[in-house]
């Protein structure tokens, strides 16, 4: 028998348990194992005079064991100090049979919860839309409410500061698509058509799309995280109580700023994408820059450029609204900032692509 934590002496039908050593947290698993191995069907004298230290966990272990075995055997406790007795009383006073209710839910409950919460979220989004529209209209009734400073700040943050990454991304995309198609076009001797293909696809589709995706990743996520954090720290509640409508102060400036900056960024992306494509054409097909841009003037109808540009404010509205809405959906724990930010980026990219597809279909139907 292991004698680290207690020694057992048997006299007739009386067992004496002499506790030894440290009855503390770190020793609990070992003590428990040894303790529950004792055969108890007799009279027991439990001697504590040799215990070196007790902490609340050691005491709790003793109490749970004692409560159980009291029913089977008669136990007499001896040799304890006054402090041990006080600790016993303290822990016993807080020992409870009541269990902590479980927060686990079964699968059906979770499916139901998810369904209802999706529905409620949809309603919440409608409410959000209503608020945004109403605040927007009130802006015009009372232009004094217009937050120029905030709008400027967000143009700086989401527009100006995104120029470099948007430029780089679209330059690379322009370069890659031209580079890849150059090989195929060369097979048909249709080298110069690279200009038609690249310029139309970039201005009409790729430029707006790349810009929107970069901005959704950069600014949409930032909007969610900012507003979400403000919600957790109750800054939004504080604003409300002071009469600062969060739609005026937080949502509209972001939406308006993005609606202004996104078309400008798209223009920039178009330029850089075409430069990238000219560069690839020059490298791969030996089309000179003069040739490339002369051809560009001939084939690139301005409507493609305008169609690309007009998508800007619409994508911007989608991204900013989803970003802000997701921010307000953050509940009280930090984890939800993470999940809402993810949802914000995923949703806005999805809606950007979906709207882009819708545009394509409608415009083709109209023959534009």
């Amino acid at each position, binding site marked *: 028998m292991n004698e680290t934590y207690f020694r057992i002496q048997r006299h007739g039908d009386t067992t004496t348990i002499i506790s030894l050593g440290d009855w503390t947290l770190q020793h609990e698993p070992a003590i428990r194992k040894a303790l529950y191995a004792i055969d108890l069907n007799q009279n027991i004298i439990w001697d504590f005079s040799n215990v070196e230290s007790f902490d*609340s966990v050691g005491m709790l272990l003793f109490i749970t064991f004692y409560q159980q075995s009291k029913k089977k055997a008669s136990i007499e406790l001896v040799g304890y100090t006054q402090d041990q007795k006080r*600790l016993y009383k303290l822990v016993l006073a807080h020992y*409870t049979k*009541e269990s902590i209710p479980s*927060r686990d839910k079964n699968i059906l409950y979770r499916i139901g919860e998810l369904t209802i919460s999706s529905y409620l979220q949809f309603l919440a989004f409608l409410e959000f839309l209503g608020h945004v529209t109403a605040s927007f209209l009130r802006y015009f009734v009372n232009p004094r409410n217009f937050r120029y400073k905030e709008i400027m700040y967000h143009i700086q943050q989401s527009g100006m500061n995104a120029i470099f990454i948007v430029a780089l991304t679209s330059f690379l995309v322009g370069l890659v698509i031209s580079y890849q198609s150059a090989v195929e076009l060369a097979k048909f001797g249709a080298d110069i058509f690279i200009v038609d293909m690249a310029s139309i696809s970039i201005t009409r589709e790729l430029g707006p799309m790349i810009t929107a995706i970069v901005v959704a990743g950069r600014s949409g996520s930032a909007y969610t995280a900012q507003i979400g954090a403000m919600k957790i720290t109750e800054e939004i509640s504080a604003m409300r109580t002071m009469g600062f409508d969060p739609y005026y102060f937080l949502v509209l400036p972001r939406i308006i700023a993005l609606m202004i900056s996104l078309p400008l960024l798209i223009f920039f992306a178009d330029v850089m994408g075409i430069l990238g494509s000219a560069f690839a054409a020059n490298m791969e097909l030996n089309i000179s820059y003069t040739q490339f841009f002369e051809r560009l003037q001939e084939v690139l109808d301005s409507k493609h450029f305008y169609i690309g540009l007009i998508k800007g404010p619409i994508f911007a509205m989608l991204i900013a609204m989803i970003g802000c809405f997701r921010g307000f959906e953050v509940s009280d724990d930090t984890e939800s900032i993470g999940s809402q930010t993810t949802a914000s980026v995923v949703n806005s990219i999805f809606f950007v692509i979906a709207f882009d597809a819708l545009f394509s279909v409608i415009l083709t139907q109209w023959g534009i």
Partner: protein
Amino acid sequence: MRVIEAIDIGTRFGSTVIHDKVNMHIDQGEIYGILGESGSGKSLLMKEMIMLQKPSSGDMRVLEYTLSSIKYPQMQALRQQWGVLFQFGALFSSLTVAENIKLQLKEYTNISDAMCNEIVKTKISMSGLPTRAGALYPSELSGGMIKRAALARALAMDPKLLFLDEPTSGLDPIGARNFDKLIMELRDLLGITVVMITHDLDSIYSIVDRFCVLADKHVVAEGSITEVLDSTHPFIERFFKNEYAQKRLNIGVKNV
């Protein structure tokens, strides 16, 4: 034996000096108070003791370690010997109260799940919360309940050293006195050393053994209440020698 010793601690943020040559020490088994006006650097001093903030100069000794030259494994060992209650609770918001308390037990010991639950329930009840509060998330708690849950978490590992940043602020007076009683009892029975930042006169009179007063970037007085009251520093005059505090002191002294 000295459990904590601050040696010429200096703390600066840029050109703002918070502490200038702060010296104090805390003995084994003592309930030690840190007092001072808002912004006098009490929380900061405590953060320097628990290695959340490096002092700009001077040195801190905690248990047998010197913090300026401590190695990572020793840091981890040290961190398992103390419990900390933060001024604003700092509970993990994605975990329930019970999970918050259980976290370290699961990580650092081999205690069975059933026993962990028993420990958690005991700690919840000790800190003055009903058992069912264990299932709540921090966002579902009131301010006072957060304090209690944070205390329960600080006590989870039966630490040798307990750091409490304003434990009784935000509690109702009866709750605050029970809190004091619990701290005292734990100190007596488990021999833990308690460091508490407090503005609560009742705690200072009834449970704190020794305390220091931070003002003007220095420790302007250190010792038992009678020793500190001998000082004539303006902050001490203001804090203890006003009418309200005097009344409390008289009552406090009579009761002792």
